[in-house]
């Protein structure tokens, strides 16, 4: 049971490039989330999904897109990367239930130059 895995671990992009951050979970959790963590700051929710085929915007969705074609995968797409998207990105999952804790992946550190 690997839990939540994220790839890549690190990436450097040039301004205007695009990339997809991968997130996969093997816990059969319905809820999945993408957060970004800026230096010295807490986590901001980018997008979330309550199940396959269902996604919704979080607090800071601009510049990002997501899809959820399967329960296991929740990729985050960056189009036209900007320096403001330099951050550490975390994927998380929750077993369905209003009081269950979130399980986090190890993160992807992205730098946009």
């Amino acid at each position, binding site marked *: 049971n690997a839990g*939540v895995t994220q790839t890549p671990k690190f990436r450097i992009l040039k301004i205007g490039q695009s990339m997809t951050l991968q997130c996969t979970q093997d816990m059969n959790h319905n*809820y999945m*989330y993408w957060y970004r963590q800026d230096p*010295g*700051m*807490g*986590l901001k*929710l980018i997008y*979330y*999904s*309550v199940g396959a085929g269902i996604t*919704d915007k*979080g607090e800071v969705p601009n510049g990002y897109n997501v899809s959820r074609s399967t329960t296991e995968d929740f990729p985050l797409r960056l189009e036209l990367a900007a320096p403001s998207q330099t951050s550490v990105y*975390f994927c*998380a999952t*929750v077993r369905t*239930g*209003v*009081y*269950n*804790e*979130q*399980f*986090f*992946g*190890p*993160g992807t550190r992205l730098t946009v130059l």
Partner: protein
Amino acid sequence: AQSVAQPEDQVNVAEGNPLTVKCTYSVSGNPYLFWYVQYPNRGLQFLLKYITGDNLVKGSYGFEAEFNKSQTSFHLKKPSALVSDSALYFCAVRDRPNNNAGNMLTFGGGTRLMVKP
């Protein structure tokens, strides 16, 4: 809207001394409250949660937290700090009942705990 405040950016404590990391929250209803810990270059790990019942919640690694409804606080505590407890700690909250928003949490800005030998 729900919000969380962690008033201290950093807490310094000597090994063996008790530690407290403060958290206050604001929700429209009754809260679900969580503490997470983040070690360097790692994702967040769940420590403990308050859902209902006893105001003193015990969690992983000897940590506990006290829910105080009148003060809207959920401070994290440990009777005797270890150097290995040095990490970044996040408090998080969500409203009850289910706000139909996918169990979303709001996180505080984090508090860095430094335990010195």
